[in-house]
C-alpha cells in the first residue's frame, strides 16, 4: 500500500515536470519574438535588443530552462532576497517575472486565483446541487413527463458550448432584465458576489446537465438492486430508501467524475471569463498568450497540471475511502 502510494506520488511529480518542460520547450521554440511584441511595432531594432538582453532572451533555450528550473523552488532565504518568490515558511516558489507587467508571476497568479476559485466553487455547488436534485427526481419519476423533460434539457445542456450559454444568460439577465452586472468584477463583497453569479451559472449549467444524467442513470440501476428491495421489504419509508440507501451509493461515481472534471472547469473558465471580463486565471492566460508573456503562460500551465494531477490523486484516495473493496 505504502509502496504503491510512493510510486503514484513520484509519477505525479514526473508528470508535472514533463508538462512543465514541454510547455517551456513549445513556448520558447515557437517562431515570434516576445521582445518585438513588448517593444511595439514602431520600436527601433536597438531598443528591441535592449529588451532582449534584459529578459535574457538571447541565451540559448537550454540556459533559460536551467535558470528557470534552478530558481523554481527556493529553500530558506526570504522575500527580500528573492523579490519574485512567494514563501510558505522556508519554501519559496519563484516563477520569475512577467515580461510585460514587470511583476512577479506568483503575485499575478495569486491575484487572479481568488476570482477564479470563487467562480469555480460556486459553479461546482450549482452543478452538484442541481445535478443531484434533478437526477434523483428524474430517476424516481422514471418515464414521466418530468423525466422526459429532464433528459431533454440535459441533452441540450451538454451540447451547448459555454460561450453560447454565457452570451444568452448575459443578454437575458444582465442586458434585458438588469438583475446582474453585465461584466467586470466589483468593489464591495456584495458586488463581487453579484458579478460572480452569471459566470458561475454559465459554468454550472453545463456540469449540472452532465451530473443529472449521471445521477439519474446510477439511481435507476441501484433502485432495481437487491439491497433496495430488502430495504423496502424491511418496511423502511420511501424517503429512507431513496436518500439514505440509494443516493449514498449513487454518489460514489459522482465523486470520481467531479475529480476528473477539474480540467474542464479550468478550460471553461477561459471562455467564461472572456465573456464576463472576469479578472481570473482565464483572462490572465488569454492576455499572456496574446502578449507572448512566456513566464506567465508557463506558470498557468504549471498551475493547471498540478490541479489535474492533485485531483486525480484525490479521486484515487476517495475510492479507498468510499469503497472498502479497493482497500487491499
Amino acid at each position, binding site marked *: 500500500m505504502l509502496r504503491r502510494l510512493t510510486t503514484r506520488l513520484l*509519477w505525479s511529480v*514526473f*508528470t*508535472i515536470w*514533463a*508538462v512543465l518542460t*514541454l*510547455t517551456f520547450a*513549445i*513556448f520558447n521554440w*515557437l*517562431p*515570434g519574438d516576445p521582445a518585438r511584441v513588448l517593444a511595439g511595432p514602431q520600436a527601433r531594432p536597438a531598443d528591441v535588443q535592449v529588451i532582449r538582453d534584459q529578459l535574457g532572451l538571447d541565451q540559448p533555450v537550454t540556459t533559460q530552462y536551467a535558470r528557470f528550473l534552478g530558481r523554481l523552488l527556493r529553500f530558506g532565504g526570504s522575500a527580500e532576497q528573492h523579490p519574485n518568490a512567494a514563501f510558505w515558511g522556508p519554501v519559496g516558489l519563484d516563477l520569475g517575472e512577467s515580461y510585460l507587467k514587470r511583476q512577479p508571476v506568483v503575485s499575478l497568479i495569486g491575484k487572479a486565483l481568488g476570482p477564479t476559485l470563487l467562480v469555480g466553487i460556486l459553479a461546482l455547488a450549482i452543478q452538484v446541487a442541481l445535478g443531484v436534485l434533478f437526477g434523483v427526481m428524474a430517476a424516481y419519476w422514471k418515464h414521466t413527463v418530468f423525466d422526459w423533460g429532464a433528459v431533454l434539457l440535459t*441533452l*441540450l445542456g*451538454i*451540447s*451547448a*458550448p459555454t*460561450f*453560447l450559454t454565457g*452570451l*444568452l444568460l448575459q*443578454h437575458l439577465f444582465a*442586458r434585458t432584465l438588469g438583475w446582474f452586472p453585465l461584466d467586470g468584477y466589483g468593489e464591495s463583497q456584495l458586488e463581487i458576489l453579484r458579478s460572480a453569479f452569471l459566470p458561475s451559472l454559465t459554468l454550472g449549467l453545463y456540469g449540472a446537465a452532465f451530473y443529472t444524467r449521471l445521477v439519474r442513470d446510477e439511481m435507476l440501476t441501484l433502485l432495481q438492486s437487491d439491497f433496495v428491495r430488502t430495504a423496502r421489504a424491511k418496511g423502511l419509508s420511501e424517503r429512507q430508501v431513496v436518500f439514505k440507501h440509494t443516493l449514498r451509493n449513487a454518489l460514489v461515481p459522482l465523486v470520481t467524475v467531479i475529480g476528473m472534471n477539474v*480540467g474542464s472547469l*479550468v*478550460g471553461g473558465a*477561459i*471562455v467564461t471569463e*472572456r465573456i464576463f471580463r472576469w479578472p481570473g486565471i482565464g483572462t490572465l*492566460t*488569454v492576455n499572456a*498568450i*496574446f502578449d*507572448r508573456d512566456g513566464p506567465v*503562460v508557463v506558470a*498557468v*500551465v504549471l498551475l*493547471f*497540471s498540478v490541479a*489535474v*494531477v492533485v485531483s486525480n490523486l484525490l479521486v484515487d484516495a476517495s475510492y479507498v475511502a468510499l469503497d472498502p473493496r479497493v482497500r487491499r
Partner: protein
Amino acid sequence: MHRSAWQRFGSNRGAVIGALLVALLVLFALVGPWCVRFDPNLSDFVTGTDVDGSPVGPSAAHLLGVDNLLRDQLSRLAHGARISLAIGFVATLLSAGVGLLVGLVAGWTAERRHGWVDQGLMRLVDVGLSLPYLVLVMALGVALGDVTLTTLLAVLGLTSWFGTARVIRSKVIQLRSVEFIEAARALGQTELGIARRHLLPNVLSTLVVIATAHVAAMIIAESVLSYLQVGLPPPTATWGRMLQEGQSAIAERPLMVVAPGVMILLSVLGFNLLGEGLRDVLDPKHE
C-alpha cells in the same frame, strides 16, 4: 430473440434523431454553399440594407438577414458548416488513428514481456491528459500567426488522442483474456495475427463510439478557438467567429448570435445522440 444491430439502431429513438441531425448537417455543408445566392465574404450594398442604411434582418433576399458587414448570414452559415465538419471529421480521424495505435500497442504489451512499452506509453498519456490543451492550441495559434486549416487540423488531432488511447488499452486488456482469443492462441495463431483478426474488430466498435462523440468535441474546440480569435483568420466564415462578431450586436441583431449558436448546438447534439445510440446498439449491456 436476437435482433440485428440495424434493428436495434432503428428502435433507438436517440440514435435515429442523432443520425438524422448529422445527415442534415452533412447535406447542408455539401449542398448549402451551392444553393445560396450570395458570396459569404462579400458585402451586399444593394439588398443588404434597410431604408435607414442599417443591416437588414430576415428578408426575402437574405433569409437570415446580414451581419454587421452586410454579408449574407445563411451563406456564411453554410460555408462555416463545411469548416466545422471538415475539422470535426479529419481531426477525429487523426486522433482516433493515433489513439487506436497507441492503445493497441499498450494494451497488448501491458504486464507482459514488453511491459515497459505500455508503461512508457501510459506515462505519456498521463502527461497529455494533464496538459491544458486549449492553452497550448491558443499559444500555437498566436505564435504561428496565420492559422491555416492544415495547422488547425494537425494541432487539434494530435493533442486529443490521449483519452482514446487509454480507453482502447483497457478494452484490449479486457479482451485479451476472453476465451476466443485464448482459443486462437491455442490453435497456434501468431500474436500479430490474433491482434489483427480478433482484437481489432472487437476494439473497433468501442472506437466508433468514442470517435462519434469526439467529432462533437472537435466542433466545439474549433468554435471556441474561433470565438477567442485564434482560429482561422477573417474573413473565413466559421460559426465561432460569427458568434464572436455578433456578440456586440446581440441587442439589435440577435440572429447573429442565435443562428451560429443553434448550428453549433444542433451539430454537437446530433453527434452526441448518435454516439450514445451507437454505444447502446454495439454494447447491449448498456441498454
